[in-house]
Structure formats: C-alpha cells, structure tokens
C-alpha cells in the first residue's frame, strides 16, 4: 500500500485441464479488441472483437494441428526494472504438402511486415489473445508475434511424423490477456 498496490490470486478450488484446443490466426491490423477501463488499477479482459474500418470483410484463420500437439509457454526475465515475457506458441501440423508450404509462406510474410495475431483456446475453455494491435480503437505498444524456429520432417518410416512443427515467438511486457466471450463467437469471424 505504501509502496505498491498488490492484489491477491485466489482461485476457486476445482480441477483444471492442460493443453490447447484451438488456434486461429489473424492480421493484427484487421481487428479491434474491446477492453473496459481498469478497475482499481487492474487491467480488464477483452470482451468483444470487431473488424476495423476498412477491414469489414477480414477473417480469422483456424489452423488444424495434431491432437495434443499444441502448446503455449512463456518465460519471464528481469534486468533491473525492465521485465520481459518471452512467449512461445507451438503446433504440430500434419503432412508436408503445397498447402502447408504456402501457409508457412504467409506466416513468413506476416512476420516480416505486420506481425501475427493469434487467438488460442485452452482445453479448460480459457481464450487468450497474442499479437493484438488495436484495443478499444487505440494502438497499443507493439506486440510482434513471428514464426521463428519452425521445422519440417517427412519422417523415415510409415508411422513416423510427416509435417511441420510450427513455432511462433514474441517478446512482450506481460502474459496474454483473456477474451471472455465464447469460442463460438470467434468462429463467426472465421474464413
């Protein structure tokens, strides 16, 4: 109180599940995320997602990954008063084919030019947003998600993995904010 405003973390006791259920990508320039004003200095989750003016036909792009083969992690480091969160989002996409090649080309282009937006549903139902650019119509500090470290493998034997392990990375000042709507509302924005 005298030096810093802390807050508690008191989660209602109950089971939780790990893993990722769904991932979708978007152009951060196309979508605006609505966020209520902070409450007692605490940032609020995103409550609505809408296309921006000029991007009315914009869509989000779901990606199909192998079951139980997607994950997001972050690690936090400090240098004096400077804090960094290193984000990693990985997903195993099956089958090397032309569609995968061109998909990865689009990720390369996004990483170079615009950054990637990622919306992720965990198996416990929580939905998180990475790479967003516009919040309540204002541009936020750059949250640049790029593809970095992906690998492809045809496999050697019949039952070897054939596909790509896609890795998306970003450095930012915090963990991801939640979106409180249902995944069905996000699906309405898909291609």
């Amino acid at each position, binding site marked *: 109180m005298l030096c810093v405003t802390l807050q508690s973390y008191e989660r209602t006791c109950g089971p939780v599940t790990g893993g990722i259920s769904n991932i979708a990508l978007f152009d951060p320039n196309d979508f605006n995320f*609505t966020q209520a004003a902070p409450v007692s200095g605490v940032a609020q989750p995103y409550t609505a*997602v809408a296309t921006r003016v000029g991007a009315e036909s914009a869509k989000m792009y779901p990606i199909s990954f192998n079951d139980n083969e997607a994950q997001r992690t972050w690690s936090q480091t400090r240098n004096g008063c400077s804090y960094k969160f290193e984000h990693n989002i990985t997903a195993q996409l099956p089958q090397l084919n032309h569609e995968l090649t061109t998909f990865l080309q689009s990720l390369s282009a996004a990483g170079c030019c615009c950054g990637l937006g990622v919306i992720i549903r965990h198996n416990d139902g929580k939905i998180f947003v990475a790479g967003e650019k516009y919040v309540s119509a204002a541009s936020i500090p750059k949250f640049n998600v790029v593809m970095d470290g992906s690998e492809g493998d045809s496999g050697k034997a019949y039952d070897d993995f054939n596909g790509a392990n896609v890795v998306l990375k970003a450095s930012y000042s915090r963990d991801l904010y939640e979106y409180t709507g249902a995944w*069905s509302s996000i699906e*309405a924005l898909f291609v």
Partner: protein
Amino acid sequence: MALSKIKEQYATTVVAFGNSGLPLGQRDDIDELAIMAHRSQDPTLIRLFEELPSLDDLLKQKADAALPNRKKK
C-alpha cells in the same frame, strides 16, 4: 425488449462477444454490447449504435430482468 438499437447499416455485421456469432441484427443481447461500449468507451462499438441509452438505464434493465418479482417503484 432491448433498450439500445443498432444502426441499420450494421445489422449484418458480426461482432464477437458473448455466446453467439450471429449478425448484430439477429442478436438478443445487444444491451450487453451497449454496456461494454460504455465501460470501454470504445469508438469501434459506440459507432454501431443508433440509440445508446445511459449505462444506468442499461444496468437497471439488466437487474430488473434478473429479478422479475422485484417491485418496481
């Protein structure tokens, strides 16, 4: 009956919020979006409304709907 009203030009627009992905003209929870517009002052949402009642009126309607047996003054 919703207190707020979406502009006709945005009736087919999809905004992700709540539990539905229907176009705004078909949503039955537009007042929830109106509450979000007030609390965020997000111009992206505010511009969608032809009629945007006050936050107090929206919250009162929401409370009245949740407590149907409450005597109205």
